[in-house]
């Protein structure tokens, strides 16, 4: 060293300084214990009295630390274990600096206990405690999450397991909650702001010159040019699968990133019940366990006739309970890949901790088709999909090779009158000309040869409790403008529309037509949505229904509990930009 640095401590010798510097340097490398976020083990809370505290917690994902919104110090929130028939008291204290709330998703409560600020109650102010009190009259797997701003994205979500009064219909030896979610280190307000400026901000799978040349080589230049021009004229891209992707998300299983290897233990030969919950904000997952077929026994908390599949697509807010029976003494990978194949959540089913199985490569990325644009679909019934006794479970794979323009029956492309009114509006970028019933299709993106669950496979074990036909229909178009990132129903945001009024005791049919080219998981609070999927009185009871692009489906609702119920797309950023309505049962 040529120049002598000037020390402010004149009596310090050079050796002492180096020792001190080393100590300070070591301090820099050593983790600071007070800020350490230890991987807190999930806890299970049971009984009838609960105290939940909403607060900022430190969360570490893949070695990077952030401040998340947790309950009782953890993300995900504790597993709540209830018993059917109990009356519960849950005191929720808000220790955040902003208002909060908790909504019990899928649990039928009196309206003031539903947890939606602005509809059920005022919300829980900072420092306040709100006491929820309600009887539990159902059983199954559900979940709970904040209904305030974007707290659901920053970690306020957890599982609810309600034990059935009379025991289970299918036996099992082990029981695990598998809560899938998505996590971003970007603040959610910034995510929305980015999408408002550039709606394909997170899409790194767009069409390029490279894909053009590939397609031209495969399909011929003329066809490829025609295809590009067709999508270009509509100013849409078939690569829009999920608005927010793995470009910013880490996908979590019970709050753990894939590298953490969350493990569920079993003894070979045991039956393991896995309660899959999609508690994410914007991500649809395709779930499978290579080497283990899954027997789906419950959907959205309600028993269905057991159906064995290799894979299922679980949309935001849905739940599926499956039973698997691993017989070999080896590990299995629980693989939940995002629908746009930009990432995956991963856990392990193993006889001993520390084991891991191979992680399969992600499937090829699906692309939107003209059927998704609402140009009709090959071979299925266009228009209504009422209880027509269509053969369930016939076609588990997605409709192959849907080429535009090559379909019979496309001659009449006249949109319905209400659809015509929507065209050209600021908040509408597309209107489905021929929306079709597509419940038999599992969706796009599944390689052939795999048994994939579709809505047509869900058959309730017991017939519905209300056998009345609907007295009237409520028809809603799911609309949006991808470019401006505005979403709504019938071209209108929540603030531009009034409530949907239903008389108490009525039996109504909701008809949903998806004019957009993205899936929307539509959730009606407080009342069951009985999906009309061809099983007559054995239609499944659901709380969240995933409507595919260009699809038209219907479900029956008995308005048996009065109140102001939220009705919205459960993709968080769609909901917050307008895809929300009040359903007022009076």
């Amino acid at each position, binding site marked *: 060293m040529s120049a002598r640095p000037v020390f402010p401590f004149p009596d310090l010798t050079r050796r*002492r300084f180096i020792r001190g510097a080393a100590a300070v340097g070591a301090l820099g490398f050593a983790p600071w214990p007070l800020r*350490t976020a230890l*991987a807190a083990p999930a806890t299970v809370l049971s009984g009838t009295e609960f105290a939940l505290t909403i607060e900022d917690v430190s969360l570490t994902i893949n070695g990077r630390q952030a401040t998340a919104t947790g309950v009782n110090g953890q993300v995900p929130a504790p597993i709540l274990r209830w018993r059917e028939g109990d009356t519960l008291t849950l005191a929720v204290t808000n220790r955040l600096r902003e208002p909060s709330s908790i909504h019990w998703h899928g649990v*039928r409560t009196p309206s003031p206990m539903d947890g939606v600020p602005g509809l059920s109650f005022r919300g829980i102010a900072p420092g306040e405690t709100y006491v929820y009190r309600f009887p539990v*009259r159902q059983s199954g797997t559900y979940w709970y999450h904040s209904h305030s701003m974007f707290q659901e994205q920053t970690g306020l979500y957890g599982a609810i397991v309600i034990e059935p009064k009379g*025991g289970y219909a299918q036996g099992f030896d082990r029981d*695990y909650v598998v809560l899938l979610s998505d996590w971003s280190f970007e603040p959610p307000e910034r995510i929305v702001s980015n999408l408002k400026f550039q709606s394909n901000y997170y899409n790194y799978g767009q069409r390029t010159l490279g894909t053009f040349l590939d397609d031209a080589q495969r399909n011929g230049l003329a066809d490829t040019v025609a295809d590009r021009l067709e999508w270009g004229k509509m100013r849409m891209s078939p690569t829009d699968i999920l608005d927010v992707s793995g470009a910013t998300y880490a996908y979590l299983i019970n709050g753990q990133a894939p590298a953490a290897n969350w493990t569920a233990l079993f003894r070979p030969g045991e039956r393991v019940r896995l309660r899959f919950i999609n508690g994410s904000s914007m991500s649809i997952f395709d779930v499978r366990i290579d080497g283990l077929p899954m027997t789906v026994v419950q959907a959205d908390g309600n028993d269905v*006739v057991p159906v064995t599949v290799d894979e299922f697509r679980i949309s935001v807010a849905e739940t599926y309970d499956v039973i698997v029976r691993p017989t070999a003494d080896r590990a299995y990978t629980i693989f939940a890949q995002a629908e746009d194949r930009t990432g995956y959540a991963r856990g392990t089913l193993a006889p001993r901790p520390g084991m891991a199985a191979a992680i399969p490569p992600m499937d090829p990325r699906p692309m939107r088709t003209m059927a998704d644009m609402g140009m009709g679909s090959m071979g299925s019934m266009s228009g209504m999909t009422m209880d027509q006794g269509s053969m369930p479970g016939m076609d588990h794979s997605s409709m192959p090779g849907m080429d535009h323009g090559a379909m019979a029956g496309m001659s009449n492309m006249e949109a319905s009158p209400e659809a015509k009114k929507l065209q050209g509006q600021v908040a509408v970028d597309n209107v489905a000309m021929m929306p079709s019933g597509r419940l038999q299709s599992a969706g796009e993106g599944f390689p052939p040869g795999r048994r994939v669950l579709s809505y047509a496979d869900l058959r309730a074990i017991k017939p519905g409790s209300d056998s009345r036909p609907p007295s009237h229909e409520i028809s809603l178009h799911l609309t949006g403008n991808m470019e401006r990132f505005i979403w709504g129903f019938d071209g209108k945001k929540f603030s531009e529309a009034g409530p949907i009024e239903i008389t108490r005791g009525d039996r109504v049919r909701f008809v949903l037509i998806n004019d957009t080219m993205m899936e929307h998981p539509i959730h009606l609070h407080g009342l069951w949505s009985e999906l009309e999927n061809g099983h007559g009185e054995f239609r499944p009871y659901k709380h969240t229904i995933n409507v595919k692009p260009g699809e038209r489906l219907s479900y029956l609702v008995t308005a048996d509990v009065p109140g102001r119920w939220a009705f919205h797309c459960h993709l968080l950023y769609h909901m917050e930009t307008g895809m929300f309505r009040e359903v007022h049962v009076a």
Partner: protein
Amino acid sequence: MIARLYRPLLMSLLSSALIACINPGPTTAEEDATVPIGIDLGGSGPVIAAAAPEGHAPPSQHRSDMQMAHEGHDDAHGTVTVNSVDPAQHKLNLSHNPIPEIGWPAMTMDFAVKPSVDLKPIKPGSRVNFTIEKGQGGMYEIQTITPAGGSR
């Protein structure tokens, strides 16, 4: 004055550094390969009689507000898997779930079938619904048998 403070400051920094080194942070914990283990909520316990998909009476315990309450039948019934068919003796070998109405656990056994019942449509490996009644010899006999709906 600063120089006098320096030595105690350095000592406290050194000790803090040592303490910080002793308490491992998350990265060290991960290197120890403590894999997060899922919480097992336990087994199902005794199960109710297998549900019949064609709307048979549910057992009285399994009730929730959205399920229809049927009038209960008195016959014992269940849903089973057919293992083998013996047309000569008009018998079936079945694996069935527990039937609490008559206090039977899950079993695999031979059943005599009422002579009027046609065994031809019954295939080994298929799932069926059946009702049984105690016959003349005190042995249970299958009265009706139908394929279980929603086969996959």
